[in-house]
């Protein structure tokens, strides 16, 4: 009995160890390598003790200045897409939560179905249109695209979260003469904060990391950080791994911290997003 308990304990520890290595080793490897001097990056087995250096960051600054423009563009696009997605989905989610009619129910189903259309499909017609109206290579086009591909999930999520707020609260406000908009702003938004944060995690992670739309719709002015990193990977005269890891670390750290801080909201959003509709 006791030995079998020990065995189970050992098995569990081994499984946990394997999970940790699988999930964290590649991330830790990149972040550590970004601070390793020259040849230490290539040491096998990987060196865990080394004199940290900022040489790769210096080289990144002097040779890939556009990476920092890319970061700036990524930040603008991420903030813009998040604000747009949250405001629009909160107001729609509020209506879907509090009202019902055949038309409304049908349009929720429509939202769910639209979410399943692959994004690459719309690039075909949008590419010439975006060019024609001069929006190619601007922040606006990415903000609108990123927000749009999340408003359907956002709306469904907001409806689920707003459903949990007692109706009596907004009814009381409306008896006191508050309009729908005031009720939404003063009562619903503060109480629906967990839902708003869940939607924010999705949009921030997506917009900060997205590659396909940025690849197709930007060239120089609005080029985002992932696109610059992809150019480092594809660089013709061989990859400078140290610089690539330095750039990757800078791009990764903020979003990684964000996901860690928001992990509860992410879990709540993932489960509600997949199982409620």
């Amino acid at each position, binding site marked *: 009995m006791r030995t079998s308990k020990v065995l189970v304990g050992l098995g569990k520890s081994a499984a946990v160890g394997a999970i940790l290595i699988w999930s964290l080793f*590649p991330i830790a490897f990149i972040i550590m390598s970004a601070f390793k001097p020259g040849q230490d990056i290539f040491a096998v087995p990987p060196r865990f003790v080394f004199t940290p250096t900022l040489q790769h960051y210096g080289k990144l600054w002097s040779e890939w200045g556009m990476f920092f423009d890319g970061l700036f563009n990524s930040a603008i696009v991420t903030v813009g897409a998040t604000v747009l997605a949250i405001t629009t989905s909160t107001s729609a989610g509020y209506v879907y939560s509090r009202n019902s009619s055949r038309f409304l129910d049908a349009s929720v189903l429509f939202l769910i179905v639209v979410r399943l259309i692959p994004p690459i499909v719309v690039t075909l017609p949008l590419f010439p249109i975006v060019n024609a109206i001069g929006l190619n290579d601007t922040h606006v086009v990415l903000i609108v695209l990123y927000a749009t591909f999340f408003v359907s999930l956002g709306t469904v999520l907001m409806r689920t979260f707003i459903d949990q707020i007692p109706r009596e609260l907004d009814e009381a406000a409306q008896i006191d003469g508050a309009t729908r908009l005031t009720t939404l702003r003063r009562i619903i938004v503060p109480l629906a904060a967990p839902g708003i944060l869940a939607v924010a995690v999705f949009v921030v992670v997506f917009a900060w990391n997205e590659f396909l739309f940025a690849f197709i719709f930007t060239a120089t002015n609005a080029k985002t950080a992932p696109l610059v990193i992809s150019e480092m990977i594809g660089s013709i005269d061989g990859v400078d791994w140290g610089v690539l890891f330095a750039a990757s670390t800078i791009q990764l750290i903020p979003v990684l911290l964000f996901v860690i801080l928001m992990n509860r909201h992410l879990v709540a959003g993932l489960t509600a997003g*997949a199982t409620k509709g």
Partner: protein
Amino acid sequence: MRSKTKNIGQVVPFLAPVQILILSVIVVPSLYVVWLSLNASTFGQSPTFVGFDNYTRTLTDPAFLHALGNTVLIVVFAVHIELVLGMAMALLFAGGLPFRRILLVAVLAPYAVSEVIAVAMWRFLFDPDVGPVTITLSSLGLPVLDWSFEPSHALIMVGLLTIWLHLPFTFIILYAARLAIPKDLYEAARIDGATAYDAFRRVTMPLLGPAIVIALLFRYIFAFRIFSEVWLMTQGGPARSTEVVAVYLYQEAFRFNAFGTAAATAWIMVVASLVLAAGYVFLLRKQVVGNAH
């Protein structure tokens, strides 16, 4: 309960932003793609109606069929391994672990990583000359992944990368569903003399059924549109051997300017996704009805 709304006009301003975005960016363009797919056209040329010609051409193009085969391979390989791993991890976590919250956050970490950086790390780890994984494998006398030359190895790399990026999603869906199973059921099974395996087969599996199907359908639909991982890893090469459907579409449209076949490919993707989605919506409905009883 939601109240019946008679005056739709009052709520339209609240719905309009979302619906306008979706209609103008997704729905109308997608419908325009249908029209494109029925015409022969290239960038800057006036189109001519050709009926289903583009569909026949796409479906008989060996490059498309090859890309479709690769996509199906990646989807089947990656999604099912994700499911098995995610399930094992969900059961491990539900069985009780010390520092569970910290471990959960560790498992979620890959969710934050962009495809671009994931490709960078995997390309380095498996680099044929300097990659630590390659060097370790070959020093142990094990076979290495020669992904830059051998198409099947490149697909394995893409599959592994996909699993790494999306395991957090599959795991969370299954873990949440597992936590939702009432403890009493396991208690009752134990009192009735059921072994751990019996409890798994008779309690866990049937009750996790819907969550498993939902996780699978979501991952089928999202894995089917895979683009960035493949594009950044191999650009579909060598000699178009590792293309997937989305990469084929991109090449047709933006490299060969064949908007007709690209549009046909796009609609084949939409239809495939919607067929899977129909299954999903059907299950959601059933679940809603099930909850009402």
